[in-house]
């Protein structure tokens, strides 16, 4: 009997190749989309979970003035270890970068971290070579990752070799470790002993929060006790006359998906996107299942006689249900195989799309195979249920006459399913349009300075710093460059936060201000417009505490209660600095469009410069970079020349959005494809079940366009209903998403109109192919059918 079922299933598929292909491909594409999205979600949720007992690891954050800061002072780790028995280990981590010299070769490297020797008591990062218990004990020792060891020495056994950072000091290599997993929020290439930072390592202070502090609790459940004890401890410290900072604990595993913490280590993910992608995965899977049901029901008309005949031969309903579930399972298994093949083949593509490093090998474990089989069983149970239950329930008498009229209920259900599919598609189209428009808006919007034509070169070598004035002169010689200057932190990454007030007003009037220590030529080099006063003079004297020169932005002037013109000549304090406002700059977006423009104070203080910035003539990018590189070679021979366009720095802030827009756009397209396959099925079902009606209408003189219109009308109505349902949902979700940007596009009827037009066109084209076929059938044939 099973063999018979199998024969029928296989021959049915073979005979209805088109249907089978649509069905299997549709389901496979749906499954592949679903798997990709779930892999993404799984990866996002897996961050930092590879550490042993990861739930017991916490990061200590500072909590000040409604701001959460990931950096803490040096005292925190030793203090907590000493005072709280629940804390079994604590480590400080300091991030840095630098020029690494190996013999005669020099490399500009990121990810040079310092950490206490207790680092390995908190985290689980196995060493390939070396001993975790003493690799970071002595000053000037460093652990390299595999990539770095291979890059510098071409081999792994490099223990005892030496590298130099920024000319001095020399570090002895005491360990080699595997490259860090991609799902770790801590990412370094070098891990040097914190003892190498002699000044900081030897002092326990509450000032200068420059260090990440991680602690491991003996038992994760003691978190509440520990938090209470920390509060009491801070009270005691305060009572002893010190000025401690407020500390809060954050679960290590929550770091990646939390946002709004300043000086975060990595580019954070976003829980909203994780949830969104998960929902999208489920919706696409649902759509693929719905498709299967619609297509299988469409075929059921053709198989009604078979059902009737089997029943007249004594088949039980349960046997028929089994048969149709079995067919669904065969189809699903085929779709799962194809889907897995699609996932494996498309993994590289998806990694590029979503910015991930996922491995297709996740499918090769027995567990994954089991999950796939279980998934196939569940999908066939869901997708196969309607045809199985519907077909097996047909009364034999009616089935034998081939007159299967679907009941009102099942017709309603099918229509409902199509509405769901197109509703989801409409939502995705609108979503993709809005996300893409917002991205374009962020790229095209005027930021108030010459963002597109500024390049930044870090000053990471003491020699370079000393020769900066001469370097600036030499750089300015090129006609490709408009202006050259230097500053402390570049736009797009401006984090220096101070407070300011009018000079002479009390401390309590101080409000937060972003600070930008800079060389005199900065306004010109950034292309900032001054609306009052003037720029810094050509070569002002080095400031001491009371004669600083400030350029503030409009917002800062307003906050201090001045019009731009009034502000010029006034004296302000950005403690410990005091001085005169020489100019007021038109507001410009010195950080990403996620945040509104804050008050900004630029002051002349060339000692603090860390980056050279140069504005170049539009269209002369190459000449400008070539010139800068030659200047670098002259003033800092042997130091690698690296540069970034300010435009790119901003762009990186939108990485999450860009990734989302790509994923949403691609998956919207695929969802629409799947929905169209479903519509195709329903359209052919309708055309088939209305064959007689069409025949009669044609005999009575109906034209082909008239019949196509008649049959397509229904679907257009369904799509319209789906759209009407999707609009408010899309509106709500997208308004919320847009509100995450201080500067954003307005949701107008435009995107909805475009989405509606697109959807209607696609739906009409899909359904009219079937309608056209039905309408052009010879009426004699269709009438003879009964």
């Amino acid at each position: 009997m099973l063999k018979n079922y199998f024969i029928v299933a296989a021959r049915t598929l073979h005979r209805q190749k088109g249907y089978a292909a649509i069905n299997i491909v549709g389901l496979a594409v749906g499954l592949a989309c679903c798997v990709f999205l779930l892999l993404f979600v799984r990866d996002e949720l897996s961050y930092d979970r590879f550490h042993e007992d990861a739930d017991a690891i916490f990061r200590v954050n500072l909590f000040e003035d409604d701001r959460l800061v990931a950096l803490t002072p040096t005292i925190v780790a030793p203090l907590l270890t000493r005072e709280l028995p629940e804390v079994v280990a604590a480590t400080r981590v300091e991030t840095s970068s630098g020029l690494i010299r190996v013999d005669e070769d020099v490399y500009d490297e990121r990810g040079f971290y310092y950490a206490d020797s207790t680092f390995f008591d908190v985290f689980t990062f196995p060493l390939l070579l070396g001993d975790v218990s003493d690799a970071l004990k002595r000053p000037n020792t460093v652990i390299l990752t595999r990539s770095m060891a291979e890059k510098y020495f071409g081999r792994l056994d490099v223990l005892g070799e030496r590298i130099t950072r920024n000319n001095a000091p020399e570090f002895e290599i005491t360990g080699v470790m595997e490259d860090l997993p991609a799902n770790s929020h801590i990412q370094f290439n070098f891990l040097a002993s914190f003892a190498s930072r002699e000044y900081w390592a030897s002092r326990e202070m509450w000032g200068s929060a420059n260090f990440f502090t991680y602690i491991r609790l003996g038992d994760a459940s003691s978190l509440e006790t520990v938090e209470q004890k920390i509060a009491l401890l801070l009270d005691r410290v305060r009572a002893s006359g010190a000025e401690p900072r407020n500390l809060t604990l954050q679960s290590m595993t929550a770091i990646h998906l939390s946002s709004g913490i300043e000086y975060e280590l990595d580019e954070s993910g976003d829980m909203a996107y994780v949830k969104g992608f998960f929902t999208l995965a489920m919706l696409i899977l649902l759509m693929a299942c719905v498709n299967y049901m619609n297509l299988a029901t469409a075929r059921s008309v053709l198989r009604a006689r078979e059902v009737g005949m089997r029943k007249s031969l004594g088949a039980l309903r349960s046997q028929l249900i089994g048969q149709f579930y079995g067919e669904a399972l065969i189809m699903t298994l085929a779709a799962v195989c194809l889907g897995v093949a699609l996932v494996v083949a498309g993994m590289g593509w998806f990694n590029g799309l979503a910015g991930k490093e996922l491995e297709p090998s996740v499918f090769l474990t027995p567990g994954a195979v089991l999950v796939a089989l279980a998934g196939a069983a569940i999908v066939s149970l869901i997708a196969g249920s309607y045809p199985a239950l519907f077909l097996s329930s047909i009364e034999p008498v009616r089935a034998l006459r081939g007159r299967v009229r679907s009941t009102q209920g099942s017709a309603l259900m099918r229509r409902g399913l199509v509405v769901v599919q197109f509703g989801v598609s409409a939502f995705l189209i609108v979503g993709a349009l809005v996300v893409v428009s917002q991205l374009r808006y962020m790229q095209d919007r005027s930021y108030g300075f010459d963002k597109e034509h500024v390049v930044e070169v870090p000053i990471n070598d003491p020699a370079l710093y000393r020769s900066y004035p001469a370097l600036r002169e030499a750089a300015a010689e090129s006609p490709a460059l408009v202006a050259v200057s230097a500053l402390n932190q570049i736009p797009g990454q401006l984090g220096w936060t101070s407070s300011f007030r009018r000079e002479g007003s009390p401390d309590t009037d101080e409000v937060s201000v972003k600070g930008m220590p800079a060389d005199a030529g900065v306004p010109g080099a950034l292309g900032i417009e001054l609306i009052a006063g003037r720029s810094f003079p050509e070569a002002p004297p080095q400031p001491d505490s009371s004669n600083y020169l400030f350029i503030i932005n409009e917002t800062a002037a307003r906050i201090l209660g001045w019009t731009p013109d009034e502000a010029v000549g006034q004296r302000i304090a950005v403690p410990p600095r005091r001085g005169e406002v020489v100019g007021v700059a038109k507001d410009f977006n010195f950080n990403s469009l996620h945040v509104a423009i804050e008050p900004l104070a630029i002051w002349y203080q060339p000692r603090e410069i860390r980056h050279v910035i140069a504005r170049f003539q539009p269209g002369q990018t190459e000449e400008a970079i070539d010139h800068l590189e030659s200047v670098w070679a002259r003033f800092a021979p042997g130091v690698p020349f690296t540069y970034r366009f300010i435009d790119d720095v901003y762009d990186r802030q939108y990485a999450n959005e860009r990734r989302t827009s790509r994923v949403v756009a691609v998956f919207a397209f695929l969802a629409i494809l799947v929905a169209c396959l479903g519509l195709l099925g329903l359209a052919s079902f309708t055309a088939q079940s209305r064959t007689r009606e069409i025949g009669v209408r044609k005999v009575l003189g109906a034209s082909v366009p008239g019949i196509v219109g008649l049959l397509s009308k229904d679907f257009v109505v369904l799509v319209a209903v789906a759209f009407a349902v999707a609009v408010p949902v899309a509106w709500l979700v997208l308004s919320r998403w847009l509100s995450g940007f201080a500067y954003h596009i307005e949701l107008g009827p435009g995107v909805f109109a475009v989405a509606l037009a697109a959807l209607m066109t696609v739906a009409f084209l899909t359904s009219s192919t079937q309608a056209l076929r039905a309408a052009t059938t010879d009426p004699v044939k269709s009438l003879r059918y009964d």
Partner: protein
Amino acid sequence: MIETVNLSKSYQTDEVETTALNDVSLKIGSGEFVSIMGPSGCGKSTLLNILGLLDSPTSGTYRFDGTDVSGLSERQRAQLRKGNIGFVFQSFNLIDELTVYENVELALLYLGVAAAEREARVGAALERTQIMHRKGHFPQQLSGGQQQRVAVARAVVANPGLILADEPTGNLDSTNGEEVMKLLTELNESGTTIVMVTHSPADAEYSHRTIHLFDGHVVTEKFMAGPVV
């Protein structure tokens, strides 16, 4: 073999109740060959479906081989149908995806007959209906007459006591129709009870007795020459 008392069947569609059968009482003995005739819509097919346990009456009693079956569930009717009743339809109702052999075999599969025995019985049925030479073909590769011979083979392969034929020659030309009628006559001669719905007086000539239905009633019964039961 078949006895109905005051059998009625009515259909409820939206607001109209249609009576298809009205107080039909009849007896059909074992080994009889009975035709049911009457104009379109007189209830012939409804009666045949009820006799074949594909449908159940609204009221009245139906005894099949002495058992009252009018109140049986779908499941019980399916059990009773298997192996006891064979069907031949106007539109053949062969399964397109199965070969001639497999179509005939299907009837035995639902009976749970062992493979070796199936082969022997399917072979015998195909020989009997003279379609053995096409056993590997699919239905759409056969002529109408050949398809109906396969359908007859399928109906008899399980050796049912009763064969119900619903206009078996309705889709065939006269030559092919005659062949099918001869086949049914042979089956009847070897002991199978046959009840046949037909429009054709010529076909009805093959049977022993003709029951005329009109508007759901039995109007006349006419006995033909032939073995008296």
